[in-house]
């Protein structure tokens, strides 16, 4: 999926810049950024973005985290 690659590139851009500046560990496994990369790779740009956004919303202090790969 070529459009998905754009998403993967953006995630890497985030990882190398802002993500590196604000260190956090994610409560999910795989982490939110890895989840986004997996989602872009398997579902493409549009559905991948939606999945990644939904995962980010779930990654809040009230959720419990855990093992949660892209299905």
């Amino acid at each position, binding site marked *: 999926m070529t459009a998905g690659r754009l998403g993967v590139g953006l995630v890497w851009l985030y990882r190398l810049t*802002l993500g590196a500046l*604000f260190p956090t560990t994610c409560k999910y496994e795989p982490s939110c950024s890895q989840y986004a990369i997996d989602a872009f790779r398997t579902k493409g740009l549009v559905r991948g973005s939606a999945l990644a956004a939904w995962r980010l919303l779930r990654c*809040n202090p009230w959720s*419990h985290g*855990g093992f949660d790969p892209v299905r």
Partner: protein
Amino acid sequence: MILAKTPILGDLENLLRHVLNWLHGSVGLPWAWSIVAITVIVRMILVPLTVRQIHSMQNLQRFAPQMKEIQKKYKADKKRQNEELMKFYRENQINPAASCLPMLLQFPVFIALYYVLRNFSKHPPSGDLSWLHFVPNIAAHTTSFWGGYILLVVYVASQMASTLYMSATVDKTQRTIFMLMPIVFVFVIARFPAGLVLYWVTTNLWTVGQGLITRRLVPKTAAPLVEKRSSRTPPKDDGTAGNGAQPSSGEPRPKSPAAQQPRKVRRKKKAGRR
């Protein structure tokens, strides 16, 4: 900077500029203190999120011995180790402290502030741009004046302190990396406007202060949770409980079905995260 300016970013910049203008013009703060005020406002909005985060971190620390056990057990396989830890969290109703959303919410403000300050350096607004006598211009590169180096040192110290208070990980190496990170990033930040570093220092200090206050206000109550655990888990396999109770890994468990039975009716559904 890193992001091309999109319409949304432009709106964000305008919004932040309005708030800054209000703080400077109506409230009467100097520009630098307006940035500090904006940081405090943002962090105040995020208080419910961070307090929750600190509580869960304290909860996490209670289970540190068991978690270290799991880490030792799966030392060779990092991925497996992570998965087992996550399962352990779920089983013990632990809410891992760090989550991406609160951190992410600060990014838009941060990026908008970057653009506002860049604009300031091109078209300086009326009014004083200095801060506490040692920062002559918050819109200039941090290293373009000697006071900037002080600001950078304060940044490194505050970042380390806030990592100490907020880092969720029990993993020693990861913690060390996070502690050393600011020293590396100081070289990146040196190119940023001083006002941005000011934002950073303020938000870090807020984190530390919040950590100190919540620690004092919320006493560590280890007893009830330990009891909860022992009602489900026979004390003899306490050390391996995190591993033993997971249903899906396909590992055959030589336990009696009677010992398994109460585990199946765990409060799984309640703990659902969606």
